[in-house]
């Protein structure tokens, strides 16, 4: 890792600087497109008191779910967290705080965090518990609530291919939250299935320009499937 070359060789190096109490933004939707190995490395480092921002919190024993086992997560910001018995238990026990955020608002808050927009208005959540304590404002006869940006100390991202400069493309619907999460980390770490030479990715087809990316690492992925569904 030197200059524009973002490649690192070890997961330890990939998450160097991650310490207790930090905010970690994680890409993925369910178990699709999650940074499996970076999550495993967070577990290995045994950092505690994390705030984790991710659409979901994995399942028991896989994905972000593994960080619950050693009680590493203090607060979870997510849109849906229902797939995880350990999560439920820690929540009911008061060991874990959860801030439920509508999925589109969560994506937009992360985009805003990366894009220098401190806050925006949205109709999503107006008149619901999500609006509690938030400013309500009318524009052209409709009511909206004010939502603030989210950014984090680390963003952990799962890409398909990246070049040395950290330009990333995602594969199919494994894209999901990964590109927005990538923009909103003070340090953004991307793990990918393949690292290619600069110039191999078509410039107009890059999903995440390297300017957002600090470290790139080559990983191997289990890619567990949550709802294996086939046609009759």
């Amino acid at each position, binding site marked *: 890792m030197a200059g524009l070359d973002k490649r690192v060789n070890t997961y330890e190096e990939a998450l160097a600087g991650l310490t207790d109490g930090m905010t970690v933004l994680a890409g993925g939707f369910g178990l699709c497109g999650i940074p499996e190995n970076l999550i495993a490395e967070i577990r290995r480092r045994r950092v505690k008191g994390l705030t984790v921002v991710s659409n979901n919190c994995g399942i028991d024993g896989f994905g972000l779910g593994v960080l619950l086992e050693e009680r590493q997560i203090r607060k979870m910001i997510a849109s849906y967290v229902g797939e995880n018995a350990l999560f439920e238990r820690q929540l009911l026990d008061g060991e874990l705080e959860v801030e439920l955020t509508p999925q589109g*608002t969560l994506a937009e808050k992360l985009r805003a965090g990366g894009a220098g927009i401190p806050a925006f208005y*949205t109709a999503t959540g107006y008149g619901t518990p999500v609006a509690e304590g938030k400013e309500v404002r009318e524009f052209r006869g409709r009511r909206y609530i004010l939502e603030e940006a989210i950014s984090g100390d680390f963003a952990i991202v799962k890409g398909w291919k990246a070049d040395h400069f950290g330009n990333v493309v995602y594969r199919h619907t494994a894209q999901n939250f990964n590109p*927005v999460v990538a923009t909103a980390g003070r340090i953004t770490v991307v793990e990918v299935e393949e690292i290619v030479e600069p110039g191999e990715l078509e410039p107009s087809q890059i999903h995440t320009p390297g300017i957002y990316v600090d470290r790139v690492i080559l990983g191997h992925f289990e890619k567990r499937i949550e709802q*294996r569904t086939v046609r009759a």
Partner: protein
Amino acid sequence: MALSREQMARRVARELKDGYYVNLGIGIPTLVANYVPEGMDVMLQSENGLLGMGAFPSEAEIDADMINAGKQTVTARPGASIFSSAESFAMIRGGHVDLTVLGAFEVDVEGNIASWMIPGKLVKGMGGAMDLVAGADNIIVTMTHASKDGESKLLQRCSLPLTGAGCIRRVLTDLAYLEIDNGAFVLRERAPGVSVEEIVARTAGRLIVPDDVVEMTF
């Protein structure tokens, strides 16, 4: 008799128009895709970032990187596009989806919908439902008319925390198809063999019964 799940999906499918972009929620709404009328083409949006959802894959086609918002493995049809969650909800929030179909616990005469949270029970989260109801002009709620113990789900005022305020105009239950207008449910169609009286009895919110309530046919 009350509509079956399949009949509910078939009835909703009659609201489709050629060229519609449609977001179908989990459950009965998902079944609507099976009843797109002959000669009509619609594009299914899945809020995890897929426009142009296709059939479920064969065993050979299964790909962990290709799922829908229900986290099921799916395929993309020719002409599909795939994008980030931010783009997906820009589409939804911006009102570009022509029709949204989703389930609910309760709906009321003001067009309020409650579908995600039952106080005292563990709350799993709203997922994309709040964005979907706030972003769409054209929403059909599908649900049973009453709970298992007979309590009406069509209320004067939702009792549960809301998913969205004042955003629902159409409800299809197992008993009836209703519009919400000017602070009341308006009964438009009844399920085959279901009497207006039964619908009146099972609707807690203000209900207007026009002279021309049609009996659905399948």
